[in-house]
């Protein structure tokens, strides 16, 4: 019951704090794509894979008082900071979630910037294509981000290292 909510809360709890909605979206997408059983469905949007269901669930968790959302002004726009509330921690104690090695992966991703995670998630989204085609997709669909060949290579390496952390190699 409310298992999907609990999984998401667990993800935020083990990440300690996630800053930015884009970052949260990408972290969950990458985690789901490499190994972890998150249920939210993703589609391709402006910033890469995006889940309306995830947005909704986060909003619900805030309304329920399980998640704390702090809105802060940054340059020309607002960004959001997410942590678990005391009630959220209490809920998670009753509805514990077992996802071994998720914490290692999420903490690592949390240390990366949103721009890089956007690239990593886009590479994963097109992962069934050959590398050259993935690059073409990245350069065409993400032309404003001006990613370089080197960055795409780094994204591939990073995906490999996350898979190792998740125990897939």
């Amino acid at each position, binding site marked *: 019951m409310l298992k999907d909510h609990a999984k998401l809360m667990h993800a935020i709890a083990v990440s300690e704090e996630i800053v930015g*909605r884009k970052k949260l979206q990408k972290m969950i997408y990458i985690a789901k794509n490499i190994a972890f059983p998150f249920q939210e*469905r993703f589609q391709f949007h402006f910033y890469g894979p995006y889940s309306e269901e995830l947005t909704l669930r986060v909003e619900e968790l805030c309304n*329920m008082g399980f998640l704390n959302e702090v809105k802060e002004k940054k340059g020309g*726009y607002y960004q959001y900071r997410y942590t678990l509330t005391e009630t959220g921690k209490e809920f998670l104690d009753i509805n514990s979630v077992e996802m071994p090695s998720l914490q290692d992966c999420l903490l690592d991703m949390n240390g990366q910037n949103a721009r890089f995670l956007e690239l990593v998630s886009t590479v994963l989204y097109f992962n069934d294509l050959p590398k050259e085609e993935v690059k073409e997709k990245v350069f065409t669909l993400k032309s404003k981000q001006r990613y370089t060949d080197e960055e795409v290579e780094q994204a591939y390496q990073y995906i490999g290292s996350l898979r190792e952390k998740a125990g897939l190699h």
Partner: protein
Amino acid sequence: MAYSAEKLSEEKVFKDPVHRYIHVRDRVIWDLIGTKEFQRLRRIKQLGTTYLTFHGAEHSRFNHSLGVYEIVRRISDDVFLGRPEWDEEDRILTLCAALLHDLGHGPFSHSFEKVFDLDHEHYTRAIILGDTEVHQVLTRVSADFPQKVADVIAKTSKNKLVVSLISSQIDADRMDYLQRDAYFTGVSYGHFDMERILRVMRPREDQVVIKQSGMHAVEDYIMSRYQMYWQVYFHPVTRSAEVILTKILHRAKDLHEQKYRFKYDPIHFYSLFNGEITLEDYIKLDEAIILYYFQMWQEEEDPILKDLCCRFMDRNLYKYVEFDPAKEYKKLTELSALFKKAGIDPEYYLVVDSSSDLPYDFYRPGEEEERLPIHLLLKNGDIRELSRESEIVDAISGKRRTDHKLYYPADFIADDSKKPNIKKQIRTLLEID
């Protein structure tokens, strides 16, 4: 003559209750409609379990797909034709993407996708790009045409204008399903002046825009969408049927994992249970097959599977109470324990279901809510986001409405022949005594 430009010797028409007629003149469209993968959509209902609430809602994804095609055809041939921003070369791509946008939907796809971790968009791509009749037809246009169509549907095409016709906050998909679902359910919501909206649509490089004079028709469209979501799509009785359907699939999957010997061997489900479904297996699935198993499983020995199937087939659905997860999650834990004591498995018989909709949203830079907003074309040629001009739309922009309900089998809870005291406690907690 190139296949993409080939016309039928005579126009074909399909009689349609929403658009009166669907007109087909292009050979490629006619050939796509004839493929077995497209014909399969006749056997998949557009609204899943809604027919158990609104008995008229038996229409299929086939009807809807033709409807979306017809709307896009009219935009392309009647409104955009000859405008400098519209490239006639994109016409056939847009029509094919409109026709095929729902091709990968499976039977009762909402429940199936949840239980078996499937994604209809993945199957839409797989059917378009795989070894299928649809792929053969598309390849006759050009070798890379299937990929182009798949990219438009997946929103990964660089042609944003074409994508926005099929998938945006005012697209042909929504315009068809709102009217079609209103027609077949018989509700009075869902109606808006589509003719007016089509006439004021204008192509721009990145998306379709709406002439300012059409703003009130767009307001009406947004409000009718809002009404349809809460009065039809999220109807609590439909959700009850959906909950039971999902639980049937869960139970069958669990029993398979427990090596239960089904009286009626679910051969069509094995690849789903094992997570090894092939495209060929997937295309074979339709609602007739699923309902066949539900019919037969009413005779299974497993009491839960049998009961759930009887409930679904006989429309003996769960009742519900309003539920506030923030305030009542502890109550849910208590209820779950009481259900166990009463011998009713809460995993199958105590279900929280949530619905939520955001009627309209605009783009905020730097954020992740990435809905493409509706843009108005002002008389002076400027482009302005809809909610900045419309007070009605501004009032509902970005405002999500969410509803949680707790579903349970009222007949089990009311039956005091066993564990009457525990049942009484359950009724008290549910506040139904």
